């Protein structure tokens, strides 16, 4: 092996077994205090059933609203039509 190739291989292998870094005691204490610092409320998981139920309820409410708007629009059109017919009738008289 040429000196250059040898140097490259040795440099790449210089990380082998380099495992001396450890978490400091201060960091370990910080990590151990996570259950204390985090509010218990955060850990409460919302069941998937409830999420689907809420989504279905919202979809139902939106659907009812759209239907109501559509019905109201139709009723308004019908009323306007009756009124127009009535005025036409009055004009004819």
């Amino acid at each position, binding site marked *: 092996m040429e*000196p*250059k190739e040898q*140097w*490259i291989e*040795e*440099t*790449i292998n*210089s*990380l*082998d077994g*380099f*495992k*001396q*870094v*450890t*978490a*400091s005691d201060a*960091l*370990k204490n*910080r*990590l*151990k205090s*996570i*259950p*204390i610092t*985090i509010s*218990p409320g*955060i*850990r409460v*998981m919302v069941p998937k059933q409830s999420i689907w139920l809420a989504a279905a309820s919202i979809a139902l409410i939106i659907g009812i609203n759209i239907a109501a708007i559509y019905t109201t629009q139709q009723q308004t059109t019908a009323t306007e039509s009756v009124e127009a017919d009535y005025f036409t009738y009055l004009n004819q008289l």
Partner: protein
Amino acid sequence: MIDVVSVTALQTGSPEAFALLVDQYSDKIYRLVYSIVQRQEEAEDITQEVFTTVYTSVDRFKGDALISTWMYRIAVNKCQEFLRKQSRGKRSGKHVTYEQVQGTPQQPSSSYMHPGMELEKKERRIILSNAMNQLTEQQRIAFTMNKQEGFSYEEIAQAMNLSKSSIESLIFRARKQLQVLLAAYYDEHINR
């Protein structure tokens, strides 16, 4: 790797079980994160984020893998987020090299080495570290996990959510790229 921490106890929110988890995995997670991000303060912050995520999301852990694998996956994801932010220049911090960390009293050398040889090895690590910064994010993570932390291809694949063949390819390409970068360094600085 043996998981001695009871997942059930963790899922009930037991602080004792969590403390046991910290005792068992804090060094491993910190070392992995540090070896990837190479910044002491950020490595500590990311390690804390990892354990916070573990604590708040352990309910979702289904037990289909070792908890260590799950934790490594979280750690790798957090490191990837950090590297992306770093590459966009949104995050900055004090860069502490291996040399500086090794010199602190908390990390004594495990085996004796001649001071001259030790110095040369430190220099090599710094050169390699600089070259590794030029690898792609995935190449760097895969190579570090394999070469420095001794993870198997299978373990890296699980942590990075990639196939084993993808990991083999990433490490192969990382090695090739490093050979090119180090050859250029050798020509410029050593063989003049």
